[in-house]
């Protein structure tokens, strides 16, 4: 039995890789995906492009707040009108926008800071740095106003002291790994798309063999339909693993990107996702009558779900209701697992994410098995 299985796997791999186009589709495309995402997300490296609008013109606090932002490291700030800001954000010429509305200075003085807005189409990953710095800065101003208790002269005295501290600040620059992490994260998003497409393409071999009638010849030999499908799953997993290895090699060794988590952990999670991808591809095949239908289902399922799961851009920029849909997509859980490992020490949460991925794989395989099992007819195949 194992001998037959090995024979089927060997021959499927041989047939797959003897076609030159498959080398490009299965190995070349993921590399190109990584290269593309590296180019896409490396723009500006550590420099954040911020456009600001100051509508609180007379207030010295608003001017000082903008000066504070401009002095932040790795920040390039440009004064704009609201319309210019909106257009440049939409055109991705800016990473984020800062609007100080009329009444900002007064609100800080009254210990109720407001009238300050941060905008970005790139999600919280981009705004978090500036937001945290501003929170601290405005918080300090607010504390001063609380101490001054509405006395304007006292506030100005405290504010001057605050601006001329009597201590020496020694700053040490630390490496900013966020850009690298973001590039790795988005590269993996592309890899996920290619893995899903590859898995579907390989599972479609079952349908192709049905269409060219070789499937019937195979199972009229001493090979069961189950063994035949199992051989396809093994071939698919081998290709998935090769894709993961090649992608991680190019990511870390060729493009020198630090994924922000141990390479073996990354490979483990991606391989587990590979299992879910193979399961999903079998579901597509099980519910398709022919390769044309499988291709249509593949287009209908894979790209939109990758989009919704945050494979192409961060999930944070989508409406909350759409973000909830991602919970039902395996791509989301692999990205979430990788994000969690990038951001800190491993907790129980990561195991929950991994279990979710495993659960997706199990559900997909069960669904495919159920569907295959109902095809008790050579007109339907397996």
């Amino acid at each position: 039995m194992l001998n037959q299985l090995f024979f089927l796997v060997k021959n499927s791999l041989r047939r797959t890789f003897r076609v030159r186009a498959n080398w490009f589709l299965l190995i070349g495309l993921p590399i190109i995906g990584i290269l593309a995402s590296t180019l896409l997300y490396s723009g500006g490296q550590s420099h954040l492009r911020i456009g600001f609008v100051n509508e609180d013109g007379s207030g010295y606090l608003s001017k000082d707040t903008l000066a504070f932002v401009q002095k932040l490291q790795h920040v390039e700030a440009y004064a704009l009108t609201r319309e210019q800001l909106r257009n440049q954000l939409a055109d991705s010429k800016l990473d984020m926008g800062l609007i100080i509305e009329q009444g900002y200075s007064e609100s800080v003085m009254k210990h109720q800071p407001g009238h300050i807005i941060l905008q970005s189409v790139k999600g919280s990953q981009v705004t978090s740095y500036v937001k945290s710095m501003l929170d601290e800065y405005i918080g300090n101003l607010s504390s001063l106003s609380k101490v001054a208790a509405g006395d304007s002269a006292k506030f100005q005295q405290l504010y001057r002291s605050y601006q001329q501290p009597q201590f020496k600040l020694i700053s040490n620059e630390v490496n900013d790994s966020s850009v690298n992490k973001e590039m790795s994260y988005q590269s993996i998003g592309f890899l996920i798309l290619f893995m899903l497409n590859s898995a579907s393409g390989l599972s479609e071999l079952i349908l192709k063999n049905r269409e060219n009638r070789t499937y019937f010849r195979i199972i009229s030999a001493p090979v069961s339909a189950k063994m035949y499908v199992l051989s396809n799953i093994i071939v698919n997993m081998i290709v998935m693993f090769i894709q993961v290895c090649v992608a991680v090699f190019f990511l870390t060794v060729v493009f020198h990107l630090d994924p922000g988590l141990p390479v073996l952990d990354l490979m483990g999670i991606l391989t587990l996702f590979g299992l879910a991808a193979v399961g999903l591809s079998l579901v597509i095949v099980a519910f398709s009558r022919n390769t044309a239908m499988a291709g249509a289902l593949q287009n209908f399922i894979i790209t939109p779900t990758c989009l919704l799961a945050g494979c192409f851009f961060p999930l944070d920029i989508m409406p909350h209701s759409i973000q909830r849909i991602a919970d039902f997509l395996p791509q989301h859980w692999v990205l979430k697992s990788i994000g969690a490992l990038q951001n800190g020490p491993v907790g129980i949460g990561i195991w929950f994410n991994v279990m979710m991925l495993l659960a997706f794989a199990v559900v997909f395989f069960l669904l495919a098995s159920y569907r295959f099992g109902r095809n008790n007819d050579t007109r339907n195949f397996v």
Partner: protein
Amino acid sequence: MNILEITGLTKKFGNFIAVDNMSLTVREGEIFGFLGANGAGKSTTINMISSLLRPTSGEIRLLDRDLVKNSRFAKMNLGIVPQDLAIYEMMTAYENVEFFAGLYGLRGVELKDRVLEALEFVGLADKAKSKPQNFSGGMKRRLNIACAIAHKPKLIIMDEPTVGIDPQSRNYILASVRKLNASGCTIIYTSHYMEEVEEICSRIAIVDHGKIIAEGTKEQLTATITDVKDIHIELKTQESILLESLTNIPGVRSAQQEENRLHVYSDATVDNLNRILKQLMDSGAEIRAVEEQEPNLETVFLTLTGRNLRDN
């Protein structure tokens, strides 16, 4: 000795009964003709013998072993030549036969020898390194056969192996079938070409509506037909005849035309030859020859099923 015994075989697809309580025996060493119109239950029966379908009820015994319980043993002793070509266009002829023979556990030198032997047998040894995408229809059919015989099965099922090929390839395949049979293989042969079946099959079964309606040698089957006469009429020119005008004549069961030849099947007891000829002449046809032939398999099939095999 019987190589294949089918008893009470039934296959249902929902409410549709494709094979209905069929019983059949195939003896070792014979070429067994299996005739039936499309939808008669022939392919379903073959699919059950090939283990592609599970019977709803009944028993199939191959070499005296239950096929369902011993499917691996059955598959090892069975070779299938499907009607539709089942070969990989992107693989060479050698690789195709090597792959399918390898599924039967053959490896190494034995596999290589068997593959070359099979290719030699079907006359494709010199094309071993060529891909079928460059083959003619006949060559592909021969490769289809090579893929089914390399593991040396005891029973080979050939489903329409000569469909859509040139006469030269057809003759080659028919000669190969005889050669295989002479080497000890039992063959179940299905074809729409009645003359092929008459030529090579030692026994024939006719299946209709999922049941065997007749079984025996060609002579035994034709001897049962006494109430039908087969009138062959040769026309001077190849012109289209309105066959309906002939079948409206009392006694005529069916009529068919092949180029300038007409076959009219009629009740033997009705004297209607003059009316048939008059009808033809009235329609402007010029008659060259008329002959009443002895019943053949075509006549048998028509009498038993009410249809011509090739009409399907």
